[in-house]
């Protein structure tokens, strides 16, 4: 698990790596360096073993259906050994994006309020429950969702949305409660503490001199945040969002309790769907026969690939946006 400090330290990679470069020295030094290298490579080896094993398990099913049709087919029929992963990929992406859409504005706003506006005492009082939220097990979120959130969505939120925004295809259909919307909302609550706490750390690193300079130029508080604070913190906030997305993509228990577990694709957020981790958790224990187990392993491989692609995209985004503050400063 990446932590806020990692994101902050990668800020100046050149300088740090020069300090950490191994010095040609005596035997203990070299032995120590070798040991650390082995430990470092072990992490890569574990990832490689996971990929190789998933690949080995899933090779039979992928050979039978073909990678392309496995990813883009939308039927999942265990009885007839027909496997297509599209509904699960769709459900995973829809719920995760919905979670980001709901959580990022709230988290960044909360972080800005706590670092820029609130008195220090309020900050320490509010920070505590945010940390607490991050520590709640996901099955508890799932239960809360089932008993509190779902009736609320079914009784009030979904009928309300259908009445006011029903002209959009996202808010149509019978209000069941369980579905993409419930899963997205619970994911948003679950990733809120991750994004908020990292955003707070990032905002704290903004040099005071930048704020003072903006204020000295006659900027209002909002203008200071907009021209001095946010551009400097942009890369870090983006990193925080990516960490939140990572948690949302892999979340299993709370999602499977709320998404409705129906391998279908529908535009409406009220409809039940399914996600990649949820179907693995649901079906793996009773999967018998090589093809079913293989298809579930292939879903694991897909989840691995989606996470990897998103991480690469995130790194690129962070790198691009890191050029931002330099330009502002110059």
């Amino acid at each position, binding site marked *: 698990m990446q932590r806020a400090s990692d994101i902050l330290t990668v800020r100046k990679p050149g300088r740090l790596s020069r300090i950490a470069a191994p010095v040609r020295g005596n035997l203990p030094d070299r032995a120590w360096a070798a040991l650390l290298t082995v430990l470092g490579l072990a992490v890569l080896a574990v990832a490689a073993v996971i990929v190789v094993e998933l690949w080995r398990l899933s090779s039979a099913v992928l050979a039978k259906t073909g990678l392309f049709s496995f990813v883009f087919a939308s*039927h*999942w*029929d*265990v*009885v*007839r050994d027909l496997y297509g992963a599209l509904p699960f990929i769709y459900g995973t992406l829809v719920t995760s994006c919905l979670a980001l859409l709901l959580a990022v504005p709230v988290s960044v706003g909360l972080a800005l309020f706590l670092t820029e506006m609130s008195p220090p005492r309020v900050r320490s009082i509010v920070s505590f429950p945010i940390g607490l939220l991050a520590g709640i097990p996901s099955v508890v979120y799932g239960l809360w969702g*089932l008993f509190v959130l*779902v*009736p609320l969505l*079914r009784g009030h939120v979904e009928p309300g949305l259908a009445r006011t925004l029903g002209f959009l295809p996202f808010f149509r259909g*019978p209000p*069941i*409660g*369980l579905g993409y919307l419930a899963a997205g909302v619970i994911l948003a609550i679950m990733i809120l503490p991750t994004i908020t706490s990292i955003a707070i750390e990032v905002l704290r690193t903004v040099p005071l001199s930048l704020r003072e300079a903006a204020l000295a130029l006659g900027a209002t508080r909002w203008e200071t945040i907009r021209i001095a604070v946010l551009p400097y913190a942009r890369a870090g906030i983006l990193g925080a969002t990516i960490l939140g997305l990572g948690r949302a993509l892999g979340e299993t228990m709370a999602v*499977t*309790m709320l998404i*409705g*577990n*129906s*391998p279908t694709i529908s535009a409406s957020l009220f409809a*039940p769907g*399914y996600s990649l981790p*949820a179907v693995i*958790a*649901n*079906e*793996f*224990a*009773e*999967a*018998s*026969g090589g093809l*079913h187990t293989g298809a579930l392993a292939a879903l694991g491989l897909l989840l691995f690939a989606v996470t990897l692609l998103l991480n690469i995209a995130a790194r690129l985004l962070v790198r691009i946006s890191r050029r931002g503050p330099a330009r502002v400063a110059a």
Partner: protein
Amino acid sequence: MEKSRVALLSTLALASAALAGDKMLITGAGATFPFPLYSKWFSDYNKLHPEVQINYQSIGSGGGIKQITEKTVDFGASDAPMSDEEMAKAPGIQHIPTVLGAVVVVYNVPGLEGLKLTPETLSGIFLGRISRWNDPAIAHDNKGAKLPDSAIAVAHRSDGSGTTAVFTDYLSKVSPEWKSGPGAGKSVSWPAGLGGKGNEGVTGIVKQTQGAIGYVELAYANQNKLPVAELRDRDGKFVKPSIETVSAAAEKAVLPDDYRVSITDAPGANAYPISAFTYLLVYQDQPDGVKGEALVRFLWWAVHDGQKLAAPLDYAPLPAAAVRKVEQTLAKLTVQGKRVLATSK
């Protein structure tokens, strides 16, 4: 230093002697559905025979079959009988039926008691063809009942399970449309409805959603006091699920020597149509002399004295005819080539 090492060694020696000498540990793994009964059996049997300790992991039928095939456990447990393909991978495996379970249809319609369903109506509902409570097909068998003009919300299991296997096996028998459509299996491609994880997930959906209908195990419905539907049997009578009607379903069944038989849609008076055996899986010839003998003796106890513990936990005991057949099978089990139980018993 030296003294403490000696002390440590002697403690270890004592501990291992206690483990090896006085107690033996038999391990098993498999179905979650009979777990409450099995854990009662194991603890009661341990009180009678303190030297025998049985450790059971309820990881699911699929896991149980996998582990007994790889011989990492002494016995497996499964709700659905093994397939021919699975049997081929575990030569010499024997199914021992232990008790009977039933899958019951539960629903949530305020004011509606004793819902009656025909096989055609039930399959129509789960196919999504009958989608409203006041459908003429439902009204036909429930004269006088107040059926609301509301949508039916179907709830099914999202996790692979023996419960689903039994339920879909029944639907495949009574409905050609179901057989050529979703078919029978532990996970099927459901044409309608919401998936809940486990019995508790389905119960959660049914309890919370007005107009919902779902299926759970009998024990679960009884303990949660959910309204259950009566199903029409082959003689045209509506049968309420209970321990007696489930046992009755097994009475007329012709049991093959490997016990791999489906008793859904069973003939006979007062036979509840969605019933099934649950099995322990053991090898015909036990490789371990001490543990093997203890296991065979435990199985004998389970199908005799153990049956009395079934009903209080909402499992249906084996009918007498089945017990007699299982006795013969147990007598044929061998430990390192030798029989354990006398055939005359």
